[in-house]
């Protein structure tokens, strides 16, 4: 069967979808409360821990989980591996959703959101040595780029749709977009390279607060390498899950052949991490930092295990074990980010942070919304590769 992307079809509002709506609804209410009462009553944030899970998870981990589109685009467009093309669309969709919702999380998190619009325009105020400014501008631009990368999906459908405004628009915009798309995709490769590394640089300023096992001038490089690996991990998870949920063709062989690259990236991360610590005489801290030693060793194990598993051609060609590998890769990069932004961050004696319940409910709501939009879009628009497994199922 063809690899052309086609809509999955089927009803949108299934029982599972209703649960997602409920979780999303609760999140909306909590977010509303935050805008009325301020951040204090809704979160466990403090002046010592000014950033909590909305930043560490929703934004820092969330955008890295949104690197599937970035990783696949590097492979397909730069290394010219056209055979992976069927993986690109769903990957870009998860990226577009991940980044858009990270942007929503930022709007909920920042205290003075009414000033955000000034960021891209007030160029005379820009502080060019602020890594966070770079992140903010790049993420804003990248959200637009991702949806432009996604736009052929919508245009394809509308072009052949019933006559009307949408069809006319699609038919007139499509040729222009076709010509510009290459340069848009190139931007889609440049921007994550910049802001994913800058997300590491952001924590360079927290000199005396970030534990020396995590504070290193190589933060930007480590963030970059790990986000590309995470991108592949996410593609594995997304592809396996959607082939199960929507009874699509199993893409394991294609995913398995990605294993070599991913394994290399994971090993590269571990080597950079250890050589850097050794070079600056900090290896001793690996065993003498109490709980943080534990987290460091877990991080290392999470990077090494999938790296080693991927070396075995038979392990990586089985759907089940490949899924577990993908899970480990995603966990590894997520843990590294979460520890760097929260667990290894210590503002001094007297401060502590554990997310408040409403704070978690907002995060759950955001994740639920992300899954809802994914389901709607793949059911109605041509995103997943065609071939349906078996017959009669939907």
């Amino acid at each position, binding site marked *: 069967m063809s690899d052309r992307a086609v809509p999955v079809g089927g009803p949108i509002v299934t029982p599972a979808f209703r649960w997602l709506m409920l979780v999303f609804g609760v999140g909306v209410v909590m977010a509303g409360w935050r805008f009325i009462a301020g951040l204090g009553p809704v979160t466990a944030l403090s002046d010592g821990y000014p950033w909590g899970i909305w930043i560490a998870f929703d934004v820092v981990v969330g955008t890295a989980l949104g690197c599937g589109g970035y990783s696949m685009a590097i492979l397909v467009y730069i290394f010219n591996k056209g055979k992976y093309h069927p993986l690109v669309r769903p990957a870009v969709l998860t990226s577009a959703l991940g980044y858009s919702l990270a942007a929503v999380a930022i709007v909920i998190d920042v205290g003075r959101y009414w000033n955000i619009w000034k960021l891209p325009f007030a160029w005379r105020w820009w502080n060019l*040595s602020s*890594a966070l400014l770079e992140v903010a501008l790049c993420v804003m631009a990248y959200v637009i780029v991702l949806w432009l990368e996604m736009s052929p999906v919508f245009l394809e459908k509308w072009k052949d749709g019933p006559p009307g405004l949408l069809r006319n628009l699609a038919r007139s915009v499509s040729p222009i977009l076709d010509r510009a798309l290459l340069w848009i995709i190139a931007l889609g490769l440049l921007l994550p390279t910049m802001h994913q590394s800058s997300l590491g640089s952001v924590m360079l300023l927290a000199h005396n607060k970030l534990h020396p096992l995590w504070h290193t001038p190589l933060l930007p490089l480590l963030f970059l390498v790990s986000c590309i690996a995470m991108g592949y991990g996410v593609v594995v998870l997304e592809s396996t899950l959607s082939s199960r949920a929507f009874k699509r063709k199993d893409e394991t062989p294609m995913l398995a052949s990605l294993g070599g690259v991913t394994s290399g990236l994971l090993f590269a991360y571990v080597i950079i991490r250890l050589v850097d610590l050794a070079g600056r005489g900090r290896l001793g801290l690996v065993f003498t930092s109490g709980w943080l030693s534990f987290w460091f060793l877990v991080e290392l194990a999470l990077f090494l295990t999938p790296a080693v598993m991927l070396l075995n051609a038979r392990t990586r060609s089985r759907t089940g074990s490949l899924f577990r590998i993908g899970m480990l890769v995603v966990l590894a990069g997520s843990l590294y980010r979460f520890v760097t932004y929260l667990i290894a961050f210590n503002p001094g004696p007297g401060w502590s942070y554990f997310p408040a319940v409403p704070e978690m409910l907002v995060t759950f709501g955001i994740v639920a919304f992300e899954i809802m939009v994914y389901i709607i879009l793949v059911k109605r628009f041509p995103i997943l590769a065609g071939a349906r497994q078996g017959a009669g199922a939907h």
Partner: protein
Amino acid sequence: MAVDRRALLKGLSAAAAAAAVTPPASAAAQRKPAPPDAVGMLYDATLCIGCKTCVVACRKANNLEYEAHSTLWDDPVDLSGRTKNIIKLYREGSRVSYMKQQCMHCLDPGCVGACMMGSFQKREHGIVTWKGDRCIGCRYCAVACPYNIPKFEWDKAFPLVVKCELCSHRLAEGKIPACCEVCPRHAVIYGSYPELLAEAKRRLAEQPDHYYPKVFGEHDGGGTQVLYLTARDVPFEKLGLPTLDEEPVPHLVRTVQHGIYKGFIAPVVLYVALGAVMLRNRKKGGGHE
């Protein structure tokens, strides 16, 4: 031409790594000098009697609401969105010392390095001030400040970022900071930065047995315009001041960011290179959309 692409990626990561591990220049070379009109404060913990007159005066001078955590009229427990200046207690056995906390007005501040649109800036007299119209409330300033000074109004729907601005509004009227004006023991004094530094060193030289042998803020974190003296047996860490090296807080991130983004050349080169590789691939009939 796989080599080209590999070389491109290698070159990029090498550039990033090189920029990142550039050996730091000597601390003196990194240090930003104090502005010529720099002013500041000198707090001598050995003179302070903990009367908290300065806390009240600060509240009045800055129109700050009082705090009530117990049945006392005003009992702030830390700096906060309503308290820009506080006297804390250090106690170990029978040994007691006081500690005044407020913004340190760093020579090269972490908050200024962090702030995306320059809400935080070193303005007249080297005073670090905050302007609301440029602030989105991201709180990166609080993450970056080694002294945990910028405070956020957590219980407000439209919050401000609050911290000591050395009573710059009073300086403009020819007055001095309220805390320095009211201190009955002159434990905290206001003056020009070079004069205060000289005064601190004079005290150290005159009574070497009385003082811990260091002026906090002369070099710490690249230097601060608020200077501290403490008793010989109460080192600065015990007063809650962080242990910092002489490198200014934003120096490392500046080195890395400027190394990678100097003149925005690297990103433009990378962009063109990426586009070129993709054009080439498309001509060869590879994976295009």
